[in-house]
Structure formats: structure tokens, C-alpha cells
């Protein structure tokens, strides 16, 4: 009776532990089926109680051994192996020593299976996590392959486009010199043509920079100040569209190692996107905060992330009151050249470039729709200990 009481207690404790570890339901079910089988067998064949416990203990140790193997814990594997051998020896003890090793050891046999089940269930969790990480890594590889293709294409396009641009520009300049100063209209036409060449050159130059710019010029910087400077650059667009910008900077944020110029570009891109989403008379808010990542918060990151529970991070959230992003577009928004903006308004590189820059800083950028409508972009940047201390 005491043993069954103990079994119920350990079962309850194990169930609690499993729930706290957010172990998949399949693993928990399997564990409980195994436990139920062991208890039923003990009730049906009380005289075989020890045998059943040993069987349950031995079997339950297998996933624990696998876990130790996959995690590269040789010491744990050896200890579990020793436990398994001890179980067998105790089982066979009446044969060799004529004495059955029961009593306190029985407790061990009762508790051991549950510890093993818990470890085994943990292993299921590990497998699930590894699978998720693998999937995320594959996605990142695809993304970086896309970026590389863009880079290669950009270099090719740059070369092929710059030559005709040079021809057109030189031609314009030849004509400009030949046209009499009194022919203002023709001169204006030629100047417009020159501007068009300049614009095309800027776009091609942007593509080249996108494919090449892989270096960061890092220095300790205040994120709030960087955001403020970026906002100054888009102030005119905000005013033109009658959009209210609500800035909620968290005071006393630790300084971060940033390439200020590039991060400024990120904020300009994101706020510009928000302006285009809102169109007219809406609201954009920028919030910054210092947060400590909890285990639950980590689960919110859909991609493989560089963080661990307990990491201190600066989180920047840019929210808009626009229509939000259609579900079918959410997975594509970071793809280079993906845009829903009308021709001439966006190249489809803004978010892709922003993501590239944030990831170069060891951070992450996520985009989601808000429950209350509109979109939310979340940038997470890890607080560097040395910079934080300085």
C-alpha cells in the first residue's frame, strides 16, 4: 500500500514536472501508458512486483540513455548503465546470495522509472527542439542563398547597366554643349535626362552596395538616439501624410555595439514601410525596452535565434495603425524584391536589407500582425556585457 501511495505521489510529481517543462503530449502519454502498465501488472501479479518494477525501470532507462548519448553526456550514460546493471544484479541476488535485496532498494526501483521517464520525455522535447532548429537553419540557408543570388545578379546588372548609362550621359553632355543657350526647352529636356541617368545610377549603386556591404563599423551607441536621428530623416514624410508618431523610449537603456549609420537605415526603412502602410492620418509608435528573456518569451521567436533564457536584450517595437499584412505575405516579406508597393515606390529590398543589417549585429527582426489591427515589427538586440559595463 505504501508503495502504491508512493507511486501515485511520484506519478503526480512527474506529471507536474513534465507539464512545467512543456513536454509534448505524445511523450507524456507514452510515459503514462508505460506507468499504467507497470502498476496494472503489479496489481494483477503482486508476487511478481519486483520483476515488473525491474522491467519498468530497465525499459524506462532506455530513452534516458539515448538522451545522454545524443547530448554527449558520457558520464550520465555510464551512471545510467551502472544503475541498469545494479537493477539486474539485485534482481538476480536471490539466485547468487540466497538473499533478496529488497526493502530500501524497492524504493529505488519505484522512483527510478519515473526519473527515467522524465528524462526520456525530456529527450522527446530535445528532439523536437533540434528539429525546429534544423528547420530554421534550413530556412536561413535558403534565405542567404537568395541573398547571394541577388548579389551575383546585382554585380552583373551593374556592369550591364552602367555602360549604357555612361553612353547616354556622355551623349547628353555632347548635345548640351551644342544646343544654343537660347533653346531653354531643349536644355531642360537634357537636364531631365541627366537626372534620370543619375537616378538609375543610384539604384544600380544601391544594388551593388546591397550585395557587397558586409562590414560593420561598430561603436557603443544609444539606440534611442539612433532612432531619434532616423525619425528626423522621415519627419517630412510623416507630416505630409498627417501621421502621428508616438515615441516611447525607455530611459537608461544600456549602450549597444552598433553600426549607427546602418541601424539608422534600418529604422528609416521600417518607419517608411509603416508610413506607406498607414497611408494617411494614422499612428505609428516606436517603443524601446530593456528585457530579460524568459523561456516562454524565447518560444515566441519563430526562427532560430541567438538567445538563451536569461539574456538581457533591447527590444524595439514599431507598430502602425495600417491594415496589417495579409497572412499569405507574412512568410515572404523578408524576401529580396518582394513588394506590394506600386512601381517606383519600393524596390522590395528594404526589409531584406534591414534584416541583413540586424542579423549582422547578432540580433533578430520579426514581423507580425497586431491583435488590434496593423503590423508590428520587433527588433531584438542582445546587450553586450562589456559595453553595458562601460
Amino acid at each position: 500500500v505504501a508503495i502504491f501511495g508512493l507511486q501515485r505521489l511520484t506519478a503526480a510529481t512527474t506529471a507536474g514536472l513534465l507539464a512545467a517543462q512543456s513536454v509534448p503530449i505524445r511523450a507524456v502519454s507514452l510515459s503514462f501508458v508505460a506507468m499504467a502498465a507497470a502498476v496494472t501488472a503489479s496489481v494483477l501479479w503482486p508476487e511478481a512486483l519486483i520483476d515488473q518494477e525491474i522491467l519498468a525501470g530497465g525499459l524506462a532507462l532506455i530513452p534516458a540513455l539515448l538522451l545522454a548519448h545524443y547530448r554527449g553526456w558520457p558520464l550520465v550514460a555510464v551512471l545510467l548503465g551502472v544503475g541498469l546493471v545494479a537493477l539486474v544484479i539485485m534482481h538476480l541476488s536471490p539466485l547468487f546470495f540466497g538473499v533478496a535485496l529488497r526493502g530500501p532498494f524497492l524504493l529505488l526501483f519505484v522512483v527510478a522509472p519515473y526519473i527515467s521517464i522524465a528524462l526520456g520525455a525530456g529527450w522527446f522535447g530535445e528532439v523536437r527542439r533540434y528539429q525546429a532548429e534544423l528547420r530554421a537553419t534550413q530556412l536561413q540557408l535558403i534565405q542567404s542563398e537568395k541573398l547571394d543570388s541577388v548579389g551575383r545578379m546585382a554585380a552583373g546588372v551593374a556592369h550591364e547597366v552602367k555602360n549604357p548609362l555612361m553612353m547616354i550621359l556622355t551623349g547628353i553632355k555632347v548635345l548640351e554643349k551644342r544646343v544654343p543657350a537660347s533653346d531653354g526647352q531643349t536644355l531642360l529636356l537634357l537636364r531631365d535626362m541627366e537626372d534620370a541617368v543619375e537616378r538609375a545610377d543610384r539604384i544600380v549603386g544601391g544594388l551593388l552596395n546591397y550585395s557587397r556591404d558586409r562590414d560593420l563599423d561598430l561603436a557603443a551607441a544609444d539606440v534611442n538616439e539612433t532612432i531619434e536621428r532616423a525619425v528626423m530623416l522621415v519627419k517630412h514624410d510623416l507630416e505630409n501624410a498627417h501621421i502621428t508618431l508616438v515615441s516611447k523610449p525607455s530611459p537608461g537603456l544600456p549602450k549597444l555595439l552598433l553600426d549607427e549609420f546602418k541601424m539608422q537605415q534600418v529604422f528609416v526603412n521600417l518607419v517608411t514601410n509603416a508610413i506607406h502602410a498607414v497611408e494617411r492620418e494614422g499612428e505609428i509608435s516606436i517603443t524601446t525596452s530593456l528585457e530579460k528573456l524568459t523561456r516562454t518569451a524565447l518560444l515566441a521567436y519563430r526562427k532560430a535565434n541567438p538567445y538563451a533564457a536569461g539574456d538581457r536584450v533591447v527590444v524595439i517595437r514599431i507598430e502602425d495603425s495600417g491594415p496589417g499584412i495579409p497572412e499569405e505575405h507574412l512568410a515572404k516579406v523578408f524576401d529580396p524584391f518582394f513588394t506590394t508597393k506600386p512601381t517606383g515606390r519600393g524596390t522590395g529590398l528594404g526589409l531584406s536589407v534591414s534584416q541583413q543589417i540586424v542579423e549582422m549585429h547578432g540580433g533578430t527582426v520579426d514581423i507580425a500582425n497586431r491583435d488590434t489591427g496593423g503590423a508590428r515589427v520587433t527588433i531584438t538586440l542582445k546587450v553586450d556585457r562589456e559595453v553595458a559595463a562601460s
Partner: protein
Amino acid sequence: MRKRRILLVDDEASITRALAMYLTENGDCEVCVENKGSRALAAARSFKPDLIFLDIVMPDADGGALAAEIQIDPVLKGTPIVFLTALVSRRETGGATMTIGGYPFLAKPVHPETVLASIAEHARERV
């Protein structure tokens, strides 16, 4: 002072045609054009330029290798060379001429005024 002799080597005939026109009309230059990289050395030997504008990427010749050949050629040795290239952007050069392998270069699309300024700066003086 006689006109400066400028050799333009670029496989894009439209570029050399327009640039030659501009330099002849607006600069004190005598311009020779060569659109085949493989014939550039021969053209240079017969024209004896004071400055060569050399494209780097051409289908039948490599601008860098050509520059090296010019520098060891007994007739052409010491002839100033400026590369013209579409491989870098104007922003990267900071608008001014920088060097590739010790030679100054101009990033396409380059303003013809900049080409004139480059001639004034680099072309050999001949009296």
C-alpha cells in the same frame, strides 16, 4: 602646345564614339578610339598617346594585363593610363579618382567633365 593625344580603349563603341565627340569638341584633344582590346597595344604604338583610357572588362582582353604590357613596351613605357570601369560604383570611389593596381580609375557612368579633369591631371605634357 599641341593637342593632347588621347586613346580610348573600350569594347562599347557607343561610349567611345560619344566620348570622342565630347573630348574633341570641348577639350583640346586629339582622340583615337579602339574597340578591340586585342588591338589596343598596336593602336597605342602607332598613335603614341599622352594618356590612355582603358576599360577593364572587355570580351577579348583584360584591361589589367594590357596595362602591364603597355608598361613593359619599349615605345609605350611610361604612358599614363586611367582605367574606366563599371565594376565599382561612383559612391565607392568617393567621386574622385582612386587607384586599381597603382593606376587611377574612373567609375562608369562618369561625367565627361570628369574625364576632361582627369586628362588635365594625368596626361603627359608635350611641347
